[in-house]
């Protein structure tokens, strides 16, 4: 498969397939200031996250990186996987487990692959990208990144994504995108992909050295320091300028 995009790809609930339409069309249908359909995730590929790829997130660990249990700063991209049970779309409620008071909202750019990428050079890496989307990499707050439990990041609904994948050609500078997180309409975090340790192209090159990325796979480039927290009942909106606005409401998980 080759995933080629000229405009933007999205999948409103009720439609049989994800379809391509003008960015403005999806912006209108997904607008966060008025009601509209919920969306399915715009892709079903494997979703990878990158740990500590924001300079301020790495800096927040400070000298801890040289102490136990870490013993050294990261040498190569540290990746993790958000399994398929976590991935939901725009406007889909996210369950907050009964044993977590608050969840961490990990706003990040999602790079959606368009072609199979194995051992690609940084100079060519962006030509393997179909487009970009907004991802909320949700976690139960946890201090240690040594060997965190899957319970913290892999719960159902913990990876909202979308509303759409915006074609690469329409996002000419993926390493200079402003990201804001708002909770109930109040901006609580501002960051930028300009803060990445490994910029998008270099990250793809370094990852594809040991692991093939396939069309539809999503590489989350990394979350900035001080990810804001939200509780059941609150609405979280992540805006990446030129890519989209992703909104989800947190709800208390139903008892088993």
């Amino acid at each position, binding site marked *: 498969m080759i995933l080629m995009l000229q405009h933007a790809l999205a999948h409103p609930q009720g439609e049989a397939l994800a379809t391509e339409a003008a960015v403005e069309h999806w912006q209108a249908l997904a607008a966060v200031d008025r009601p509209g359909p919920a969306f399915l995730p715009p892709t079903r590929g494997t979703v990878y996250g990158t740990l500590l790829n924001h300079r301020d997130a790495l800096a927040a660990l400070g000298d801890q990186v040289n102490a136990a*249990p870490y013993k050294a700063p990261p040498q190569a991209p540290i*990746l993790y996987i958000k399994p398929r049970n*976590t991935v939901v779309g725009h406007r889909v409620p996210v369950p907050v487990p009964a044993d977590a008071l608050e969840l961490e909202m990990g706003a990040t750019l999602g790079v959606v692959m368009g072609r199979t990428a194995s051992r690609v050079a940084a100079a060519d890496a962006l030509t393997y990208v179909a487009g970009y989307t907004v991802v909320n990499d949700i976690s139960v707050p946890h201090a240690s*990144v040594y*060997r965190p439990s*899957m319970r913290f990041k892999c719960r159902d609904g913990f990876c909202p994504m979308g509303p759409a994948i915006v074609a690469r050609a329409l996002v000419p500078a993926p390493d200079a995108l402003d990201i804001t997180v708002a909770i109930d309409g109040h901006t609580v975090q501002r960051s930028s992909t300009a803060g990445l340790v490994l910029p998008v192209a270099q990250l793809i090159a370094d990852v594809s050295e040991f*692991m093939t990325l396939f069309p539809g796979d999503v590489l989350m480039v990394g979350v900035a320091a001080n990810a804001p927290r939200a509780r059941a009942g609150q609405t979280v909106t992540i805006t990446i300028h030129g890519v989209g606005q992703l909104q989800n409401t947190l709800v208390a998980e139903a008892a088993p």
Partner: protein
Amino acid sequence: MKHARVAYAGAIHDAIEHPAGLRLADGRVLAEDAVVWLPPFEVGTVIALGLNYADHVKELSKELTVTGKDEPLAFLKSPGALIGHRGQTRRPADVKFMHYECELAVVIGRSARNVKRAHALQHVAGYCVANDYAIRDYLENYYRPNLRVKNRDTCTVLGPWLVDAADVPDPHQLALHTRVNGQLTQQGNTRDMIADIPELIEYLSAFMTLSAGDVILTGTPDGVVNVNVGDEVVTQIEGIGRLVNTIVGDEWFGR
């Protein structure tokens, strides 16, 4: 019954075991070496267990910060790392310690959420052999084991068969063996798992939905040793299968 997925004569086929090798769904009977073996089903989420055999915990105890009976150490792998029976796994030229791990793979057949251990095995479609390689040179102390150690292309071997759960009366009484070039290097028994299969399904399904096609690699016993280019590594589980893999060097990949 034992099920396989193979490539043959220009297409991908479902197949079952046959005295002569295997029988494709369309009736063709073929020898084991006449087909390209793929992972035996369409794989969804791949969950792997670290340190789930007491003797392996002891083997690695120098570097451990956990003890045996804490929460299971589960981590994720991606389907892209998988290859089938009789495949080739790459050993980078510059590494010092790359080892196999013979593991019983549990394949989910019915979605599971908040399933108690008493009912857990009702959600299992069947079992496979897995050989989950690790390259310890790349181990870093962030999100252990990091994907560069554990999720490399060609480094998770799965197959040859998916054996129906109905044909495995007790998945916790199966001998495991690994042989490198015919020499026995690892042996154990699934009875020695720290968290057994029902416990793992109860644990995982308490926070995530497991779906058909998801697979749990249940960990490996003591006896992991370094392998080198040219080695034939055979991981075998009683009643489940004999999974053959060959270690190849960088030159096969133009590196």
